[in-house]
């Protein structure tokens, strides 16, 4: 398994300036081409861990290896999708999607062409010249996803991407995400606090315990994501996974 891990964390620990210990000795392998979920109650440091993997926060202890190399900051092989979308309010949707390419100095026609294609893939053709404040929450996050896809990173890090989106939109978005990822060799690390979301989307689920965050269990539900969305939601293995996760997480909820 370790040989095929594209992202590895080794003994990662993080204590914030105020003395709060967010993570302790976290060692996880994230296999190439799989969707892994970091799941746990609030305060388990799952977002902190994701941002350490992104290179946005330096760990106090341990290290993160991406493709075997120790990281010391963000890199072009990783792209981040933010919980609060983080769209530039003064830029059009197209420019937002192309922003990562713009920072890399890709010529305008090339990056606009790529951005247009990614926008079409997330179902937002026709909104190229809209501004973010004209879009709904779900549409904003589709823009965020298109922006991450535009830089063609191997690893996509998603920080509770659907948490500010209403339930119906979220379901549709989850289904679309699976379709989008099915044909790409993307490795996705996904943070969520929703058990159903984790069970529905994931190849692997990493359960974290709170304060300080440590790895509690790693589950591989093996549901198979090539099936019809509604079929997955009725699948025995999906329901069992949801139940199993809940049995473990229950002890952390007070």
């Amino acid at each position: 398994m370790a040989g095929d891990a594209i992202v590895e964390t080794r003994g990662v620990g993080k204590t914030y300036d105020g003395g709060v210990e967010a993570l302790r000795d976290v060692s996880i392998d994230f296999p190439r081409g799989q969707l892994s979920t970091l799941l746990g109650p609030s305060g388990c440091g799952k977002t902190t861990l994701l941002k350490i993997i992104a290179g946005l926060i330096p760990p106090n202890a341990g290290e993160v290896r991406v493709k075997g190399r120790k990281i010391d900051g963000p890199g072009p092989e990783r792209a981040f999708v933010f919980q609060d979308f983080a769209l530039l309010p003064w830029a059009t949707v197209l420019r937002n999607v192309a922003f990562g390419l713009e920072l890399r100095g890709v010529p305008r026609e090339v990056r606009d062409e790529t951005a247009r294609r990614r926008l079409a893939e997330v179902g937002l053709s026709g909104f190229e010249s809209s501004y973010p404040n004209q879009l709904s929450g779900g549409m904003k996050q589709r823009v965020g996803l298109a922006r991450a896809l535009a830089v063609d990173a191997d690893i996509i890090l998603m920080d509770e991407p659907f948490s500010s989106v209403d339930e119906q939109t979220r379901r549709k978005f989850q289904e679309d995400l699976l379709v989008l990822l099915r044909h790409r060799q993307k490795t996705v690390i996904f943070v969520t606090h929703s058990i159903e979301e984790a069970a529905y989307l994931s190849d692997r689920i990493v359960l974290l315990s709170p304060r300080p965050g440590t790895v509690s269990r790693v589950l591989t539900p093996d549901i198979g994501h090539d099936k019809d969305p509604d079929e997955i939601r009725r699948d025995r293995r999906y329901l069992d996974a949801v139940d199993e996760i809940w049995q473990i997480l229950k002890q952390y909820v007070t």
Partner: protein
Amino acid sequence: MTLFGRKIPVVFSLAIWFFAWELIGRAGWSTIVPPVSSVLEAGITVLGTDKFSAAALISLRSFAIGMALALVTGIPLGFAMARLPGVGRLLGMWVNIFVSAPISALVPILMAVIGIGETTVVVTVYLFAVFVIVLDTQVGVKHADRSLVEMARSFGARRRQIYVHVLILSALPEILAGVRLGAIRGVKGVVIGQLLVAIIGVGELFELYSQHFLMEEFWALVIVVFLFAFAVSEAIAALERRVEYYASAR
């Protein structure tokens, strides 16, 4: 503006005030208040004189130089205070003191140190304008969306790119508000500086008119200065409105 359910142009309010002024002036209650019609008449004569053009030129020049200096030092200083905690702690208190301090009280000292002349007026304009620009820039940069900065970093933005692509644009509404307030203060700076120095520019004219009791000319000059301050402020406000849509979207 609506009156009795009807829309009335704003100019109408001005007309009413001018009418009242005219009546009071005609009644001859006070020699300090001449009728508005003779003020306007005097204004037209004053505007045509070489003395006025020379005074206006000097005043505009002092204002422009002082404001330019305030912009090129104030905005970078505001950025430095917001981004470098050390600078912010070191200067924060002083900027806050000076932004609320009556700078006019310093002008006599400036006159003693720099001398009685245009430089003193330029420095006065600068001191009137710069602190509010620093403060507003600092607030704007500090409150720039942190997740936007994080987003730019995650896509590999270098330090310079973060400034150009995120921080400046994000702080633009506050920076412009600071520049507008700074410019309004700067106009006060020109007038107060020149009044105290009293031998140059518009200040000299004010001094001249009031000492010779030329009230028509005096009021005409007041109106001109008021209009100038208003025009500067409105021009910057127009710029602010253009960036408003994204300020409200933050």
